[in-house]
């Protein structure tokens, strides 16, 4: 039971770090400007509760507090943490895949298959010059039934061909997205 109380307390503390009441008080009669922050709830977010210790006394408190501006702010640090970690992991995965595609895969292929296969795989035909081949592609898409690994390999080959086409249009021939 004590453990659950401790856990509860830390949970509450983590959340209470995410709320604050921020009061900005400008310089007043020789007193410098100051920023006050405290973890109070929304109804207590005003100058009297947050500005501690009060630099002026008695009659001047009201005049001082009138010039202060208090704002209640809430953030979610859990969201920030989750987002950054997810972003960095996706970025890391993409970088690894990029290194694999550009450096490792040609090296592996060259070792396994020799030079001739590499030249063959770079040959590609633009669709329009062979209209019937293109039609063949459109119809054959609905007929093949390979097993799982073949399917993945096939999809990857198709994707890489598409990216190569896109790269040609954008970077080499400059027809799209100049």
């Amino acid at each position, binding site marked *: 039971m004590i453990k659950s109380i401790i856990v509860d307390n830390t949970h509450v503390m983590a959340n209470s770090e995410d709320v604050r009441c921020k009061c900005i008080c*400008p310089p007043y009669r020789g007193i410098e400007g100051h920023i006050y922050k405290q973890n109070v709830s929304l109804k207590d977010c005003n100058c009297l509760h947050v500005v501690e210790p009060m630099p002026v006394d008695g009659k001047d408190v009201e005049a001082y507090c009138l010039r202060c501006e208090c704002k209640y702010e809430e953030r979610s640090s859990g969201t920030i943490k989750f987002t950054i970690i997810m972003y960095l992991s996706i970025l890391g995965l993409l970088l690894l895949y990029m290194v694999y595609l550009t450096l490792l895969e040609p090296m592996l292929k060259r070792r396994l298959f020799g030079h001739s296969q590499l030249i063959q795989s770079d040959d590609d035909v633009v669709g329009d010059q062979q209209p019937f081949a293109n039609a063949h592609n459109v119809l054959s898409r609905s007929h093949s039934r390979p097993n799982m690994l073949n399917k993945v390999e096939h999809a990857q080959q198709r994707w890489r061909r598409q990216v190569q086409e896109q790269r040609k249009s954008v970077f080499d021939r400059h027809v799209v997205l100049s």
Partner: protein
Amino acid sequence: MSNGGGAASSTTHLLDFLEEPIPGVGTYDDFHTIDWVREKCKDRERHRKVRIKKKESAWEFTKSLYDAWSGWLVVTLTGLASGALAGLIDIAADWMNDLKEGVCLSAMWFNHEQCCWTSNETTFAERDKCPQWKSWAELILGQAEGPGSYIMNYFMYIYWALSFAFLAVCLVKVFAPYACGSGIPEIKTILSGFIIRGYLGKWTLMIKTITLVLAVASGLSLGKEGPLVHVACCCGNIFSYLFPKYSKNEAKKREVLSAASAAGVSVAFGAPIGGVLFSLEEVSYYFPLKTLWRSFFAALVAAFVLRSINPFGNSRLVLFYVEYHTPWYLFELIPFILLGVFGGLWGAFFIRANIAWCRRRKSTRFGKYPVLEVILVAAITAVVAFPNPYTRQNTSELIKELFTDCGPLETSQLCKYRSQMNGSKAFTDDPNQPAEPGVYSAMWQLCLALIFKIIMTIFTFGLKVPSGLFIPSMAIGAIAGRIVGIAVEQLAYYHHDWFLFKEWCEVGADCITPGLYAMVGAAACLGGVTRMTVSLVVIVFELTGGLEYIVPLMAAVMTSKWVGDAFGREGIYEAHIRLNGYPFLDAKEEFTHTTLAREVMRPRRNDPPLAVLTQDDLTVEELQSVINETSYNGFPVIVSKESQRLVGFALRRDITIAIENARRKQEGILLNSRVYFTQHAPSLPADSPRPLKLRSILDMSPFTVTDHTPMEIVVDIFRKLGLRQCLVTHNGRLLGIITKKDILRHMAQMANQDPESIMFN
């Protein structure tokens, strides 16, 4: 103009219905234009079928309800995804931006502001200093001040900027080359009926999101609004594939894309209404009222999701929320109009310079080294931007600082002179009162920042990383506006006895708000470069919450549009469309020349005759040779070579698919089988092979005009109906064909531009 109705006689309809539809017919090739009329007919047909079947059973009724509501479902999913992705991009971009200057030791995932959020060591004068945030010089060298640490900070800034830029361009090049650039010109073209396969796909979405963060964090002079529109449209495209109503029909898909682009602008600026108006004015081509309601819904859902993520603890969608309500005076309209003139001039200059640079990149050897170009631009930007505090910080923060008026709570460098002026309550008529040196150094730095941004944005927009244009233009306008505002304020202070100021300004400096000038300047520059009107005003006042300032905003935006239009009618997006040669028929341009249809149609005088198909004379071999020898997209079908009377129009892609399908599925189709487009086979000798019926792919109601139709009417027909081609007849006999490409070339020729620059069909 003949416009055959959709309903043929009931017997033919029934027989065609019994024939199996050929898979693949009705789809389009990459880089081709869709046929709006055909897509809309297909959609009406589908809707009719659903309505007829609805009465049959409860299951069919449920299916019809699902069909009616699937539009709302797609739009909701798009809004959710756009809001979530925009939140991710905002949080990650802010963090990576601050990574250039230091790290938060207590929690590595916090940026500078969040790191010092709970700390009590922040002071009034220096609101950013807290012990948990360490700059790189502190971490590496151990000291925070001094020339050594300045050089170390400089070096680390350049290092991070270069590595981010390099990563971004490598990812774009390897995974998704379509993810570079702004995306808005291509989306405009897609929405007008063009197909670019892969432009709105999954990989493009992922790479654009990831590299947008990297590009913004590298300090390049670009923004993330245009790419956010692209991201939202990718989401819309991907979700529309879940519903066959949208995935199979290109026209319906574009309705979803219009709504998605509204959601994109809405999360970029926190302006849902402005987003809808932006989609209506800038991006969409056909915008029926149903799309208006759906776009608004998508924009609201996206804005709501972004707000509920609320990463930064201030419940605001965008940084620039201004909260002052000081009034403006009539004489201030003069500097506002001057700012509008500046905005128009800068817009015209930027469009010309950027298009010239992009053209050079396209056609010379400069364009062969995109990675090197990005690194070079990022290096120059980082090296020049670091010394000037206004260019070193995030552009959005700069804009916020410029928009914020100087009050007692502000301590930025721009407000240093105010204390001098307000300190002496009883002003003496002392003309020799020196201006506080603080304001002069701030003005100098702002002027340098202005020149730097103007020059660098020209080279940055169009790089092979995701780049937007809105934030840099707003920054340029805000800097110019603030300079003008401070100048007018000084003028009012030192010459308070002039007639103008004596009428309206009682106390020396309090009547002028330089922050308002910055806002008006930002709107003017953005209007000058994009030539937006209503949507810009609505976006700016939704951004800033300043409803009182609509009149100055409108005055400045209108002035900048007029001044910009005096130099050239196109905005930056239309200029890029023309540079790339996309087949975009602009709805805003008027065609005022008196040419006739027969002067534009093909074949021209010296061309080979029109490639036609006869309705029952051809064999499969002859048909294939016609297709192989020519490169036309479609062929008119006539009764016979003698009469030249028109039967219909057949598309190349449909013919090839149908022939392939017939050779696979039907037996006995040989090379010398007869091909017929009529309802019944022609009479053939007994030993001839089985004939091939291609009536199902024939369009029986092509649009025709006579050869004496004025081109104004033809262009109007193309624009309003979304045609791809139109046949020209003379006395009832087929004479020629006009395609969209011919019209665009003709318009280019009439405007003395190069007609060969129109590249696509």
